[in-house]
């Protein structure tokens, strides 16, 4: 399967990344190689194989519905690039 530059541009859109001309070119080439490499797995017959969606065989690991202390707002917002002291701040969404 051929990876076209439009594919890379589309994927960059989905990933919220801007790519320079040069990056698009490099990534298109890289992706072509990597995807061809990845295609190897399609040699394997997995018709009757179950998926391993999880790394562990455990299940039903739950938490009790008990309140724990929240983080102080100051600490929460300390890393925010922009805030008004109460909330994270963004430019207008209009």
């Amino acid at each position: 399967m051929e990876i076209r530059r439009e594919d890379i541009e589309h994927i960059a859109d989905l990933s919220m990344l801007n790519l320079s001309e040069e990056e698009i070119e490099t990534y298109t080439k890289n992706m072509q190689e990597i995807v061809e490499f990845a295609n190897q797995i399609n040699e394997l017959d997995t018709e009757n194989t179950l998926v391993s969606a999880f790394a562990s065989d455990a299940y039903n690991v739950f938490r009790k519905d008990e309140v724990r202390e929240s983080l102080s707002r100051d600490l929460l917002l300390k890393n925010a690039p922009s805030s008004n002291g109460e909330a994270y701040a963004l430019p207008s969404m209009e």
Partner: protein
Amino acid sequence: MEYEVIIGLEVHAELSTKTKIYCGCTNEYGSDPNTHCCPVCTGMPGALPVLNEKVVEYAVRAGLAMDCDITRESKQDRKNYFYPDTPRAYQISQFDLPLCVGGKVDVNVEGENKTIGITRIHIEDDAGKLVHDAYTGGTLVDLNRAGVPLIEIVSEPDMRSAADAVAYVEKLKGILEYIGVSDCKMQEGSLRADVNLSLRPVGQKEFGTRTETKNLNSFRSIARSIEFEIERQKAVLEAGGVVYQETRRWDDEKGEGFSMRTKENANDYRYFPEPDLLPINLSEEYIENIKKSLPELPESRKARYMSELNLPEYDAGIIISSKALSDFFEEAGKVCGNYKAVSNWIMSDIIRASREYEFEYDNMPYTAEQFGHLIQLIDSGKISGSIAKTVFEEMIKTGNEPEKIVEEKGLAQVSDEGAIKEVVDRVVAANPQSIIDYKAGKDRALGFLVGQCMKEMKGKGNPQILNKLILEILNK
């Protein structure tokens, strides 16, 4: 051309757990922005979700109450998209293995019974809130609601009108309240619906292209947005145009729906199994236990009210439409033993008062017990029905016990025959014409005399005794 309207709903209900779905932050509504937050619900690097067991239980309760099959081996999936109210850039939801599938609810629309199919119910986390910042014109992000547990109830496209949709949502609301998994406060957004709607020419088998109007949080907006969208699509089709599959927004103030144009690729959510959370495997025993713990559902209450308490279907339907009201009915009825009277009061004065004084049934200014006492006062002859209305108004204003109100205001009914006789004699003597009229067959004269006596006694006279004594004189 005649069109058939096809409607399917996705209803989101916030679950009334104590804590959020994946962390121990409180699930309380309100509070200052960003004070119910922690590394998990704000998507801090390295933080991991842990599923609240109550969320599974509540979703299964909802599923069983809506006749669903419960998925024995279920899992959670990530739904990836970028939006500032979604701190991890993915919502944790369920994709191909929702907790509940294939249910149904019965609704009654204008006297006609219909069954609405439930495709699935799954669990997921709610997003935060974006608020317009009046100072800067910018947007502020409040993550208090981020991570609040939701169930999404997806219906089959079984509804054909706004009335169907409203009846369906009312029904869901009732069930969720009854089984105690959501408080369904629509004004707080804890119950909201997305409407999928399409038209097709009558007789056509295939569905037309549907639109999805998102986030409707009142019955009124559900009904109005549906009416609007039906007319809009009709107009498009009749003009020979094409309905586009799109997401729409409803502006309740303007009474109009708007297209939210998004890029065509924006819907590629790249679902995949959430690797931070392990599968949910529910045993037969677990499901059986929840089934056993389910409270009586509205339908069965309604049937009981009709068969055991002899309520008319309409009245029973009104009472069960709100769990709070129905609970009130049962408790007050138990206190006074006169369910019929409680029902009559609900149908008239209580419903009216709730509108007039703007209170919710789960937060009435008087308790069910107090109200039961009010009925007892009437039934024991201590006050008359008309005085009771005065006492009821007083209960709303003060929240005081009816006995106390009667006592303080001197509203107790006079049942002393001697005292009443005195008044009757005086009134009859002052109205000789009434006796003539009565004897001439004018029954109205009796009513007039009773009214005059009552007026004299400031409404406190026992009406039965009054009647009896006046008739004695008249029939002499």
